[in-house]
């Protein structure tokens, strides 16, 4: 792999950019791998990357039915934060956030991590108490957050109307090192690094069946033939239940559409990320100047990557009071992704009833922020059979009643 650097850009400028290589290779599937990862989203690619980097396992294929990063990884609104309430969440999300800090250097790929600060608005007394509690929990977990008052909110984000009338801003949970990153670059950067370690990234290769023998995985059936493996990691987000069914088990997951939209580009007016959970909407400004807007999920099970228009309308309506500026914006485009939602709004990183099959799913509406940490933890789980970061996220926790309840911390989709 040729390293990207300022020097390389200058050198190529002098020779019509003829010296760049393809960022990752296009491989034909081999007949057998140590580990097959299904799904070339951020989580699948990060899993493969850390299998190689942390455990020296490089006989790995990442199989993708569409194109790399074309699932939720390329459809999300890129909010990164780690201000969750429960200890297991804080551990994996903060690990992830801290890996984002150095990701561009680690991957030699600019993922444009922008720790511009994330605030979650408290617009009811109940939320004030809830976020103060989260701030206290975070300080015990070594996650730097603070509860700030309305004046400070206004100072950080002047375009906001903090006086209501319906939902005045009473304060906010502020994480100064939260922010955003470039979603495609995260997938591309990992893909390039995996390819460099000799792994095969195989696009347009849909897994159609899981082969087992005596309760152990032996391989997969795909649209490009049968491929054998010792271990199988299913990292397919909205399609987790479909893959699980192929292996003969069920998951506590429902797949629903989550939509987002962006406005026409405008001049810089907002350099923080704001989430308003009471009214169900959130907002940030991209580097191109578009206002990036998201809200809650659609209501019903859905695999079509399309949602209902009235949800978009509700989201925008919710934001207009707090951000009057939104009322004057033209919206440019809108899209949806299929998110995998669990009963406690926490992910599943787990062994499964089939020996050698591991599952990573349930990130639902908020897994972009978790990509590096989840890959790190999942690689350890696949390589060693357990990881301190994944222990609490077993798929069997629902049977034991050991929920990791984040339905308050993740009250709105992000």
């Amino acid at each position, binding site marked *: 792999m040729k390293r990207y650097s300022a020097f390389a850009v200058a050198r190529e400028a002098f020779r019509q950019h003829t010296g760049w290589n393809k960022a990752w290779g296009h491989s034909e599937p081999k007949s057998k791998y140590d580990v097959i990862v299904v799904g070339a989203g951020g989580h699948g690619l990060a899993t493969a990357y850390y299998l190689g980097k942390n455990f020296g396992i490089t006989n790995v294929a990442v199989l993708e039915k569409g194109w790399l990063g074309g699932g939720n990884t390329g459809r999300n609104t890129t909010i990164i934060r780690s201000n969750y309430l429960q200890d297991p969440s804080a551990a994996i999300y903060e690990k992830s956030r801290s890996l984002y800090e150095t990701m561009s250097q680690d991957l030699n790929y600019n993922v444009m991590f922008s720790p511009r600060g994330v605030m979650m608005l408290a617009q009811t007394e109940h939320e004030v108490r809830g976020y103060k509690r989260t701030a206290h929990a975070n300080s015990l977990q070594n996650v730097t957050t603070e509860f700030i008052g309305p004046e400070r909110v206004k100072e950080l984000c002047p375009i906001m109307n903090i006086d209501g009338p319906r939902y005045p801003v009473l304060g906010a949970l502020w994480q100064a090192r939260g922010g955003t990153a470039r979603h495609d670059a995260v997938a591309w950067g990992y893909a390039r690094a995996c390819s460099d370690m000799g792994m095969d990234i195989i696009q347009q290769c849909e897994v159609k069946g899981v082969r087992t023998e005596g309760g152990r995985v032996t391989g997969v059936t795909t649209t490009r033939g049968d491929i054998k493996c010792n271990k199988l990691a299913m990292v397919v987000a909205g399609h987790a239940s479909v893959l699980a069914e192929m292996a003969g088990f069920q998951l506590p997951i429902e797949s629903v559409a989550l939509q987002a939209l962006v406005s026409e580009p405008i001049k810089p007016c907002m350099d923080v990320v704001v989430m308003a959970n009471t009214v169900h909407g959130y907002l940030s400004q991209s580097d191109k100047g578009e206002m990036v807007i998201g809200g809650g999920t659609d209501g*019903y099970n859905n695999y079509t990557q399309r949602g209902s228009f009235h949800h978009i309308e509700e989201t925008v309506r919710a934001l207009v009071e707090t951000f009057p500026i939104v009322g004057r914006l033209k919206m440019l485009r809108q899209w949806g992704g299929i998110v995998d939602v669990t009963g406690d709004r926490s992910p599943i990183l787990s062994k499964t009833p089939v020996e050698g099959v591991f599952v990573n799913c349930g990130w639902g509406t908020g897994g972009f922020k978790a990509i590096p940490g989840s890959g790190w933890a999942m690689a350890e789980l696949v390589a060693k059979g357990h990881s301190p970061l994944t222990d609490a996220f077993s798929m069997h926790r629902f049977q034991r009643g050991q929920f990791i309840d984040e339905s308050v911390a993740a009250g709105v989709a992000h």
Partner: protein
Amino acid sequence: MLILHCPYCQRDVDETDLHAGGEAHLKRVGPEADAAAFEQYLFMRRNTKGVHFERWRHVYGCGKWFLAARNTATLQVYGTYSAQTTEPPAHITEAIRAAQESQA
């Protein structure tokens, strides 16, 4: 927008008047059931990509629950039926079969 026929009001109803209630025909378990049975009833879901039987409530209308057969991969609606059933009735299974045949 999704439009479903409320079998009680006998009217086509917009999604904004409805509330989705998740998978239908779940078997409710009693207090004597073990943890695995409760897990199955409360949390495990088929989450089918394809024909999905589900509960809906006509919240801003008659307020009643009814069931629908819908395809989660195409958004095609096969029909709606009474919630007082333990399995999809014949006219629904017939509609699904006919739709699948016309596609094959």
